[in-house]
Structures are given as structure tokens and as C-alpha cells.
């Protein structure tokens, strides 16, 4: 291989889904070493989960940093209508242009309306410097 590109990935779930509608960090990558210009970072994410009791919508968010306090990537939350007890697969891509040298990224999930915990079965978050 002649060259490689900066990448990070994980399939380790950081937290279980709670029995309420609390935004919860599921996957974290980083810290990632970026060039200090307008380099683009491409994200691929995937998650399969069993929807908790009472849940009507699953909202997924990408954030800079490792907590739910980090800056939101994207124009809005990414939501999907669901029914409690369903097993669903969700996936997406997005990008970030960040003028900083080091940052982490996290993927979070909110179960709107949940009164019972959902179960993350598998998934991944990969970040790739273009």
C-alpha cells in the first residue's frame, strides 16, 4: 500500500439505552488528528437495535467531542418513526469540515417516548479524512 488516509472506527457501544428519552452516547471515535485547514471528515455509521417500550421515534445525532454537550453535526436531528419492540437497522453518512487539529466524534441515540430500555445489538461508527 502506497499511502493511507487518516481513519478511526469503533464497534464498541459505550452505554446501554436507558428506559427513558435521554440522549445517550453509543459510539465514540477519536481523538482524530486533522490537518489545520478545511479538511473534510466523512462519517459512516450503522446501528441495529431493539426499540424500547413506548418508543415512537428514534433520533440519531452526530456530535463533535465525546459527550452529548458537543456541537451537533448536521442541520437537524436524524429521526425515524418506529414501533416499540421492533428490531431496526439504521445507517447514514455525513461529513464535517472542522478547522481544528484534534477532535473526537460521537454518535448518540434518543428513544422518544421510551418507558422501557431499548437494546443496541450491533453497529459501528467510522470517521475518514478525505
Amino acid at each position, binding site marked *: 500500500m502506497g*499511502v493511507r*488516509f*487518516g481513519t478511526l472506527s469503533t464497534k464498541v457501544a459505550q452505554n446501554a439505552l436507558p428506559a427513558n428519552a435521554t440522549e445517550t452516547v453509543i459510539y465514540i471515535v477519536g481523538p482524530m488528528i486533522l*490537518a489545520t485547514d478545511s*479538511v*473534510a471528515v*466523512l462519517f*459512516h455509521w450503522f446501528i441495529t437495535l431493539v426499540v424500547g417500550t413506548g418508543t415512537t*421515534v428514534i433520533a*440519531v445525532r452526530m456530535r463533535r467531542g465525546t459527550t452529548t454537550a458537543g456541537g451537533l453535526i*448536521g*442541520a*437537524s*436531528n*436524524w*429521526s*425515524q*418513526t418506529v414501533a416499540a419492540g421492533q428490531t431496526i437497522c*439504521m*445507517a*447514514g*453518512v*455525513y*461529513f464535517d469540515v472542522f478547522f481544528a487539529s484534534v477532535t473526537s466524534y460521537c454518535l448518540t441515540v434518543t428513544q422518544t417516548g421510551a418507558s422501557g430500555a431499548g437494546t443496541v445489538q450491533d453497529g459501528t461508527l467510522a470517521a475518514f*479524512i*478525505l
Partner: protein
Amino acid sequence: MGVRFASEFSNTIANLLPSSATNTAIYITPPLTLAADNAQVYIAWFTCIVTGTGTTSLVFQIYRFATISGLKIGAQSWAQTVVAGNTYLVSGSYIDQPGAADLYYTLAVIQNGVSAAGTLSDGCLLAFVL
């Protein structure tokens, strides 16, 4: 960083979803500078859509160039059955081998059966040269 992929991307919504089943360009990349050989272009896309009244399926298509009159990428349209009023995350990836320089790409969607406009809340279209 020694090398980078040639890439272009956009999360700017080109057109709102109409209240009819019209093929509508929703994301358009800036022109991608390609090697004038058979370089492959990896295309990834993501949408978060609240389906409008009457919608029974969403049909996605990617075109070369900046309009829906460009050459369609892929063997056929990419359709997903939906329920009106629900929220969906839909994403995908594909490969093109255009053999041409300076090429835009356009992601378009048709809301089959729609009688009231759906809402595209977020999404993106990325293309990078492998």
C-alpha cells in the same frame, strides 16, 4: 498529511419537496475534478424525510451533472415503501466510472402518491475519487 482524496460534498438542500410526484433534485455536489482516465467515484448519500400525505414510496436516483436531465447512475431507481406522515432515514452508496473531468452529481427523489409536500429535514451527498 501527504495525500488526499479529491472529493466534493453538499448538505445544502437544492429544492424543497413538492406536493406532487415530481422528480426533484435535492442535493448537488460542486464539480468534481477527476483524472481523465477510468477513475472510480465513490458516491454516498443520506436523507432524513418526513413523508407527505398520500406518499406510498420514495424513489431515489443519482445523476451525473447538476440536473435531473443528466445520465442516471445505477441499473434502476432505488425505491423504498413508506407510510405517509412517518419519518425515515434513507441512505446509500454507489460507484460511478465516468471517464470524464469536472463532473457534478445530483441526488433526486420522487414521492410517489403524494398530495401534500413532505419535508426534507437534513441530508447530504458526497462524491470522492478512489
